[in-house]
């Protein structure tokens, strides 16, 4: 409980420059419950951070859209595959 309050207060009192670091980290790691709650409270009254988080989410969806586009591209072409297998075979012999 003390840790929760301490983390929440720390987040609520930090400048927005540090909030954006936490918004990004939240996509790659689990924040403490106090940190996560502090951020949720903060964005209720901070329009700048709310917009930043919205843009981060937009970036994530856009990333998925780009992944889908990249996925439908054709795979390794036959001639490239053949040359690659030849390179592998040569490397095998040389070692």
């Amino acid at each position: 409980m003390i840790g929760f309050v301490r983390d929440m207060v720390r987040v609520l009192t930090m400048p927005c420059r540090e909030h954006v670091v936490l918004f990004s980290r939240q996509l790659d790691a689990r924040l403490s419950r106090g940190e996560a709650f502090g951020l949720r409270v903060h964005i209720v009254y901070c329009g700048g951070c709310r917009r930043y988080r919205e843009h981060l989410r937009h970036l994530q969806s856009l990333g998925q859209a780009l992944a889908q586009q990249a996925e439908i591209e054709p795979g390794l072409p036959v001639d490239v595959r053949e040359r690659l297998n030849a390179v592998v075979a040569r490397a095998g012999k040389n070692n």
Partner: protein
Amino acid sequence: MTDAQVRSSPTPDAEPAPVPLRAGESRDAAARRWVTEHGDALWKFALARTRSKEAAEEMVQETVLAAMQGYGTFAGGSSERTWLLGIMAHKIADHFRRVRRAKVPRGPAISPDATCICGTCRGMFTEKGMWACIAGRWPDLAASDAEKREQAEALRACIDALPPGQSEAVWLRDILGIPPGEVCKAMGLTDTNLWSRMHRARVAMRSCLETKFGLRKETVR
């Protein structure tokens, strides 16, 4: 952690850890299997980043050869495909370092702080770390397939403009959606390295998209 601390934390491009041999499989057999099982994924990654078939072929060959050399010891922690993509990420980053060194003068780098295009704002934050201005809404991604394609293309260009090392981390983490722990293992980064690299990249991508969307609005007008 402050932004300054994040920026100053080291982000070394260490070589990724090698992967264990499969029982009874020779290294050459493993390399042939990689080409069969992961060749398409490696090719798509290389082609998406380099946008050149010649360069992509070189990247795939270098990756498989480096993987053959590094094949042997390691303690796991990522899938074989992620391990190969990690090696490729280093190869692609090196490729762009070479290309950018050869290009004179260097193109304008994206300043991680220059997010607002309103002309009055210099950087995202005031000296006290508060928002200098609030950015506008972005065009709705779900508006149409054409809109989605156009925006995805804009993102691709913004990823290309990131420094080598950052673009590859972004591709593995935010595009291919590989879990952060695996990206760290594959690229030889600590958690903190990855967090700071991703933070800087996302700020820069946001700033770059902001400019592109802003320009588009101006053209419409």
